[in-house]
């Protein structure tokens, strides 16, 4: 009787200790694009630092921006693209990162540092980079694909997938017309809008991540895709191929940032440092198929992937491509015209 009583007390004691542990664990809120991390890496981080990672995803930069800007969230780390980082810096939504805490920052290749959107590299640490291009199914498309015009070809009626993202869609129409993807000219943008409306009848669907599955299942012949997804999808279905149109496209950089919503900047910096560690960056890159800016990880990368021109295009291939800039006040025109494109029946 006495013995069992002691055991009982002991068990209760253990439970108290254990629940106590649970409550003390710090939480790190990570806000990332969908399908854009090897979730094992998050588990490793949790174990190594004895914290809990709360992981959420978004489908476009715009959605991420609205959620952080409207408040009510406490994201510690987000991974926006170039132009969005520029905008967030301008609007004072980001913390400066103390690079002394990012010991692995040296592993990032120099050409990804101090880019125009974050000139002194105070606010962001490179995560992945890539291009936008056309992913097509060789079985369904006989001709050579090298121009955006093919996305307007009536032969592929209801075989075309576009991205459900305003900047990317306008960039394609602008490049097709031979304009800069960073145009501040309302007439050029109106022209691009007319192109997109003209194209609408031919488009099967405007998609996010669900489009990848559709290309693998051969539900569509052509799709606008990001290079990293293309690398991954080409492994899944060998009929798929990816090109960057000759007239140029969008060259993008996704960097890790610490939004002002963060309540635990120190831990956020630890996470960014962790993600930049060569072994972790390597693991992550191999899993998601995107292109790493981490030179150490690059050295370790599987040779086939390292020499893959989809993931790591030559300078020549991207010579006409541009990086997005924040349109500033002109964004309102984008917003209005995109609403008109989407509302058009």
């Amino acid at each position: 009787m006495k013995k069992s009583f002691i055991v009982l007390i002991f068990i209760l004691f253990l439970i108290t200790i254990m629940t106590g542990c649970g409550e003390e664990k710090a939480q790190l809120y990570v806000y990332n694009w969908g399908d854009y991390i090897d979730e094992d890496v998050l588990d490793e981080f949790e174990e190594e630092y004895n914290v809990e990672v709360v992981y959420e995803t978004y489908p476009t930069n715009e959605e991420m921006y609205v959620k952080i800007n409207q408040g009510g969230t406490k994201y510690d780390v987000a991974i926006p693209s170039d132009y969005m980082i520029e905008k967030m810096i301008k609007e004072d939504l980001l913390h400066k990162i103390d690079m002394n805490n990012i010991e692995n920052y040296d592993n990032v290749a120099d050409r990804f540092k101090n880019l125009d959107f974050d000139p002194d590299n105070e606010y962001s640490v490179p995560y992945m980079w890539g291009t936008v291009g056309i992913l097509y199914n060789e079985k369904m498309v006989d001709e050579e694909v090298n121009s955006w015009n093919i996305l307007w070809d009536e032969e592929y009626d209801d075989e075309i997938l576009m991205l459900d993202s305003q900047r990317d869609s306008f960039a394609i129409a602008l490049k097709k017309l031979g304009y800069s993807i960073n145009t501040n000219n309302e007439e050029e943008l109106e022209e691009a809008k007319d192109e997109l409306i003209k194209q609408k009848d031919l488009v099967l669907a405007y998609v996010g991540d669900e489009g990848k599955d559709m290309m693998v299942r051969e539900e569509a012949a052509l799709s606008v895709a990001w290079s990293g997804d293309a690398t991954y999808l080409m492994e899944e279905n060998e009929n798929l191929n990816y090109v960057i149109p000759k007239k140029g496209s969008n060259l993008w950089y996704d960097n890790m940032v610490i939004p002002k919503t963060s309540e635990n900047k120190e831990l956020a910096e630890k996470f960014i440092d962790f993600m930049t560690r060569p072994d972790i960056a390597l693991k992550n890159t191999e899993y998601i198929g995107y292109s790493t800016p981490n030179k150490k990880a690059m050295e370790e990368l599987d040779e086939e992937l390292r020499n893959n021109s989809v993931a790591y295009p030559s300078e020549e291939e991207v010579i006409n491509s541009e990086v997005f800039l924040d349109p500033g006040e002109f964004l309102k025109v984008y917003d209005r015209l995109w609403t008109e494109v989407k509302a058009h029946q």
Partner: protein
Amino acid sequence: MKKFTSYPYIIWSVIFIIFPLLLVLLYGITIPSKTSFFGFKLSIENFQRFCEPIYLRVLWKSVWLAILSTLICLIIGYPFSMILAKSSLKRRNKFVLLIVIPMWMNFLLRTYSWMTILGKNGIINNFLRIIGLPALDLLYNDGAVILGMVYNFLPFMILPIYTVLTKMNRNILEVAEDLGANRFVIFSKIVFPLSLPGVISGITMVFMPAVSTFVISKLLGGGQYWLIGNLVEEQFLRINDWHFGSAIALILMIVILFAMAIMNKYEDKEDRGVGLW
């Protein structure tokens, strides 16, 4: 005593219903302005913008599709409720369970599964190919969206009609039979008029979610297919123009209020509240 118990409800509705509605109204009738102290100023610009044909067409299409799917729900749901009401208690409970069980599953999941059924290489088209028929374009059109609405909202039509029908006094029907009325007359003169409250709740409960849906049109309509719900969603989640979004939401509310006012006119005043609510 009555006053006491109603306080929590009053507080609840002020915080979660009235206050948010006022916010939507405030956003709807203002536009951002840098010069003003509050950061916005009174304006009817949002409503003027909505009057452009491009948006009116979206509104019209949403209303039209909602009406169509409500009608289809009624045509399928009414006979089904009658069969249900007439069957034995044991079978009836089984049937009701069968209608309700799918609703336990997540609404998104059920809509996603239609994508794999209707897709170009989906179940239906694969079957057609096996038996040597040409594949059909089933996904990303009006038909797919209406199917999605009917599939998801049909229980809301069946349940209120079924409730009314089971509560109906059988003696009235027997009297009518004794007096020589045939089945058609019984239905049109007695059963249907008496079930009207259920029909009306059914119609409102299907029409309201159908006219404001954005998930069904997004998944089964393919993103190039916009209903008014998508217009609101886009303004809030991606474009960050809460003012225009709120104005559209207000217009949508007016449409629904208008539809309910029409419905109320037909509702039998004495039997009010026989439906689900």
